[in-house]
């Protein structure tokens, strides 16, 4: 018996993929830089099927990787050439919606936006809104603890998931819930990037749609002035739903791609979205506009309708892909700095541009200091790709130097595992490994992600006086 025989027995032929040409289409997720062709792909339709596959993997000592829509930007769903890729894209049923309890239970392959679409006409929505929300799967959101523009006010996936049914790396089906008295396993599982098991049913919180939503576009001469406005807004005790900023280069790209019509000659634009009861929003909008004018904004536009709001967001939402129009190739970086360090870090990025002769467009969630520098390069120019890679890494160093993080929402995946030791000590990482080993002693669930060269679970991470030494 081989793994293939066992999988063939579990699934009809159209749900086990072994043809090499077909397999290769699964070789990467949204980050194409890393590629590996999986040994086999399975398309389960139930929790029990996933559990059965995972048990087969356990039996044969074969690693497995879960994949939803394959839109991740850190290579978190990069397959293993010696492993099984478990694709949840056929598990896309919304199992229940309970508006009285404001919760829904969904399968992992359901897209983020599908949840909102199922309840929108009744005045509810699912709050986390990653830019890829029309396609990214909720299972992937759970793995990555996805955020989005509106997480400034509403928090991340972890704040909106109430319970999970998971298949553990040993193949058990266990429910973990916020109602469980004891360790917050739910909080630890969300964001574990598929290394602790596979979420197979997800209970999410639904929120009542706000009475009023207002979007303001404010243009500034310089990005520093925009940054001051952000600090002043937060300092005034206002908590917008989102504060987004784009610099001149990013504006140029968005203009080229979607003709978003942002004010000409703007060195930076700020998008501020306020939502809530109309009475609150009106009061806050006046204050935000006054702050923007006070910090040097030369033009402000307030969206009066859903269409106008969509128009303002269009430039921002298209920014990543739009950069392709002004540069042959680019790296999307994801780092976080404390909001008060934004100015210094942006100056640091400027210095890097000069030093390496590489252009960087800045698009970011200014409200929570989450930078998405787009490092532009020409992949046909010798050495430019390497220089871009260096600039990209140096930007992360800047983030760490200022007390920030190497990733705010894209995850560590395979891409940033090597940066983890710059942010955490060996003891920190070894302690995280304890959690990993509790869930996955065999190290089969998405190995090679998050942690650089993880130890095996039996290895004693350090010599320590008191504890009886483990041999294995």
């Amino acid at each position: 018996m081989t793994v293939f025989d066992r999988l063939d027995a579990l699934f009809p032929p159209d749900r086990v993929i072994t043809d090499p040409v077909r397999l290769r289409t699964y070789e990467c997720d949204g980050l194409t830089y890393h590629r590996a062709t999986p040994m086999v792909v399975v398309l389960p339709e139930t929790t029990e099927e996933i559990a059965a596959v995972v048990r087969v993997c356990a039996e044969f000592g074969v690693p497995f990787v879960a994949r939803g829509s394959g839109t991740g930007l850190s290579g978190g769903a990069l397959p293993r050439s010696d492993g099984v890729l478990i694709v949840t894209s056929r598990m896309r049923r919304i199992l229940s919606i309970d508006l009285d309890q404001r919760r829904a239970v969904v399968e992992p392959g359901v897209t983020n936006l599908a949840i909102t679409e199922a309840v929108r006409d009744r005045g509810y929505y699912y709050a986390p809104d990653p830019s890829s929300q029309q396609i990214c799967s909720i299972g992937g959101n759970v793995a990555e603890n996805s955020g989005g523009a509106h997480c400034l006010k509403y928090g991340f996936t972890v704040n909106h998931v109430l319970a999970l049914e998971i298949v553990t790396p040993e193949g058990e089906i266990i429910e973990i819930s916020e109602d469980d008295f004891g360790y917050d396993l739910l909080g630890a599982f969300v964001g574990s990037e598929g290394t602790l098991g596979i979420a197979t049913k997800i209970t999410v919180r639904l929120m009542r749609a706000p009475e009023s939503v207002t979007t303001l576009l404010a243009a500034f001469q310089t990005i520093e002035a925009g940054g001051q406005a952000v600090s002043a807004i937060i300092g005034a005790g206002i908590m917008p739903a989102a504060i987004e900023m784009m610099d001149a280069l990013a504006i140029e790209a968005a203009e080229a791609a979607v003709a978003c019509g942002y004010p000409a000659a703007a060195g930076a634009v700020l998008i501020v979205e306020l939502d809530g009861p109309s009475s609150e929003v009106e009061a806050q909008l006046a204050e935000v506009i006054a702050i923007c004018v006070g910090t040097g904004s030369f033009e402000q536009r307030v969206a009066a309708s859903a269409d106008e709001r969509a128009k303002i967001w269009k430039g921002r939402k298209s920014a990543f892909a739009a950069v392709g129009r002004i540069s042959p190739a680019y790296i999307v970086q994801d780092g976080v700095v404390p909001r008060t360090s934004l100015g210094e870090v942006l100056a640091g990025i400027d210095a890097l541009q000069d030093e390496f002769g590489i252009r960087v467009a800045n698009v970011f969630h200014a409200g929570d200091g989450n930078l998405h520098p787009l490092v532009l390069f020409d992949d046909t120019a010798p050495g430019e790709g390497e220089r871009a890679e260096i600039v990209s890494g140096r930007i992360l160093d800047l983030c760490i130097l200022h007390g920030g993080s190497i990733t705010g929402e894209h995850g560590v995946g395979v891409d940033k595992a090597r940066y983890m030791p710059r942010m955490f000590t060996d003891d920190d990482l070894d302690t995280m490994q304890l959690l990993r080993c509790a869930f996955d002693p065999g190290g089969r669930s998405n190995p090679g992600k998050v942690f650089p060269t993880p130890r095996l679970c039996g290895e004693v991470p350090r010599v320590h006086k008191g504890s009886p030494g483990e041999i294995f």
Partner: protein
Amino acid sequence: MLGHTGVMIRDGGPLDAVGGVTPRWVAQPESVEEIAVVMGACADGGLAVTPAGGRTKLGWAAPPERVDVLLDLSSMHDVLEHVAGDLVVRVQAGIPVTRLAEVLAKAGQALALDVPFPDATIGGTLAAPSPGPRAFRYGNARDLLIGVTVVLADGTIARAGGKVVKNVAGYDLGKLFTGSYGTLGVIAEATFRLHPIPADRRWLSFECEGWEDAGDLLRSQLEPSAVEIDHPAEGLSTVAALFEGPAAEQRALAARELFEGGDVHTEAPAWWGQPPGSPLHSLRCRVAPSVPDGISVRGSLATGVYLASGSTDLDAWRSALPDHARLVGLSGDLTGDRWGPIPSLPLMRRVKERFDPERRMSPGRLAGGL
């Protein structure tokens, strides 16, 4: 055995008891490093440790099987870093929540947690969380925690998270330790996201017979920060809703229309966020729960998380509740099984085995002898 650590050590007494178990010694470290030294020494001696802060909840959950050392963190009471512009604060675990609130209030900010005990510390609030009204709007302790420093049973110092709100690098050990009742290690420092103190606040309260349904308010777009019920053992219940923001009064008045009555106040009702008495039980139930005679219940109609008090057979009450409900005996005398079903217990056990293989951290305080 601990003398060589250089950390302040004294003998334990009845006042140091954890759920009736008196420790042999009390250690009072003043830094993360001192905690690590004490923990290392305890590891050498095979000593069992229970961390403590304001000691307001040492009687909650099950008593530990043994306590050799009570690790008293009350000397670690400093605000380590508060950058107002970042709305972030980093503190030592022993700082009382009330003291932190005073510091933050000077900058017009607050940690949006409702903690009923004035002496409670940050560490204790994380290790043994208690539900608060505003959790509906701001989340619980685990939702506001963005970074943590813990010391493990063997003295290892580990950090996770950081001091930025948005951060997905590595496992979130902070959340793992939330609700751990000192059974995984010692929470030594914590970093939180803060919120601006709202410009204005109003409470709408009204009396009602039995269990009130707050559905209309929750379906409205008035965005209450909390909707609480005080359901006493006898007499009328009271429902109160909190509105925060410049237009708080306007919204409270609009909510009053919705309920066709009630009074709008600038102060919280006296019972707001207070545990209803003793013995104390934790109740989670998403629909109106059946409440046995002699039991009072307080908590959130919005989140379905309550505290209950009064003597009753927990097993009998559990059987009268819907399947999804969870009832746990927190403190005081109890009849019946303290814990009830905890589906993820097998996983919790494996976590405990990895973090504390010798079972020296508050052993037995949680379900299944964790």
